[in-house]
């Protein structure tokens, strides 16, 4: 299966890059300067402008793309190296963003609630998701012929995707059944009635990070495709060298 070329450095990706840079800069300005401190959280709310977009991106966009691409790879009619490379690239970006999400969320939690971590449904699911995709990346690194590795990775990705709702549901249940009376009523804090410039900043942040994701994905995919093509060329060289052994022996 030959990899279709995806080019970077084209006008499209350049424009994308500029849009990303501009929107990120705007978000920074809005988040740090323009929007007001929150009634409850004061300035720590500014962390949320980073936390929410990265969370949304990592959990829904990146891993969603990975799962979808893996399914498309496994389905015979749409099987193509393209989907395998996309799945891998997206997962890498996803793990990166998810790590950021957990880090910033943890800092925010420390400021707001005084704890670095809590075992509620959402956080636990996020942590498990992180480990699941670390495992996926580990499986991708195992050496094997490309088709075999691609199929194996795709199966692991689908399994990881199936596991997430199970984890979420079980922890959700655990928490409600236990009815931990907690001051950490994050539902109240995390979905505040945000309006005005705060809502716009959040929205802008989400848009900016989505653009960033697309830009990163295109470049990471290109890198992977080039590696692939290089390996194919190496293969031809290797075959020729091997055949040459017959002459010398």
């Amino acid at each position, binding site marked *: 299966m030959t990899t279709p070329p995806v080019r970077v450095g084209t006008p499209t990706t350049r424009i994308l890059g500029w849009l990303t840079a501009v929107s990120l800069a705007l978000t920074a300005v809005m988040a740090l300067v323009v929007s007001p401190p929150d009634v409850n959280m004061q300035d720590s709310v500014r962390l949320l402008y980073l936390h929410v977009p990265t969370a949304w991106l990592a959990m829904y966009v990146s891993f969603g793309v990975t799962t979808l691409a893996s399914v498309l790879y496994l389905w015979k009619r749409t099987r193509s190296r393209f989907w395998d490379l996309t799945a891998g690239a997206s997962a890498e970006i996803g793990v990166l963003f998810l790590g950021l999400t957990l880090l910033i969320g943890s800092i925010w939690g420390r400021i707001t609630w005084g704890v670095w971590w809590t075992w509620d449904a959402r956080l636990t699911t996020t942590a498990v998701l992180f480990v*699941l995709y670390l495992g996926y990346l580990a499986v991708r690194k195992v050496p094997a012929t490309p088709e075999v590795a691609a199929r194996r990775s795709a199966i692991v990705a689908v399994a990881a995707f199936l596991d997430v709702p199970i984890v979420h549901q079980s922890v959700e249940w655990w928490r409600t059944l236990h009815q931990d009376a907690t001051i950490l009523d994050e539902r109240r804090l995390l979905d505040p009635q945000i309006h005005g410039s705060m809502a716009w900043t959040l929205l802008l942040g989400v848009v900016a990070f989505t653009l960033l994701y697309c830009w990163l994905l295109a470049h990471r995919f290109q890198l992977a495709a080039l590696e692939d093509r290089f390996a194919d060329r190496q293969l031809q060289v290797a075959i020729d060298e091997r055949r040459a052994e017959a002459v010398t022996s």
Partner: protein
Amino acid sequence: MWRDAALVAGKDLRVEARSRVAINQVVPFALLVLVVFAFALDSDRDTLTRVGPGLFWVTVLFSGLLAIQRSFVIEASDDARDALRLSGLDGAGIFLGKALAVAVQLVALEAVLTVGVVVLYNVRLHDPLLLVLTALATTVGLAAAGTVYGIIAAGLRVRDTLLPLLVLPVLAPALLASARACEAALTGAPGDGWPWVRLLFVFATIYVTFGVVAFGPLLEEA
């Protein structure tokens, strides 16, 4: 498929009967874990009773990982996959057979550990039906999920670290559910436990199905 599964399960259990790895190594390891935890937790009887279910299932989980590793190590030291593929057996059948053999070994382990928990931690067993069903569902789920990831990790140099990394996040909800269900049974509130058992059965069904479908393709690796 079922004939192949029975054949493979029989073979795996016969290997275990002859080599006695589970009996000689895994069971003592599990019992030792129970004892060591008792020391670490300052052997306060109340504490031990409360943490008993969780500890029990964590121990079963880690012992299960050992059993699954072993299940693939026995498949010819040179290449775990070649022998199975050459045999001409159906992939789904191999999966069911291997998972069944692991499950049987785990059930035996759980029986021993239950005795250990009752004796060492002074836990009183109420509601045996809930406990038995919990154990069955968890064991099946654990064996099924473990076997699927076991074949992915089998034969690789990194298998001993890759298998836990892949399997523990998947098994975390099962661990949670089984500990909660046992807790409900032991504290005399079985009503709380039954929803967890239902979750465990769903979990087991999902992973058995997944294994039947995915094991064959995963086995086919050059």
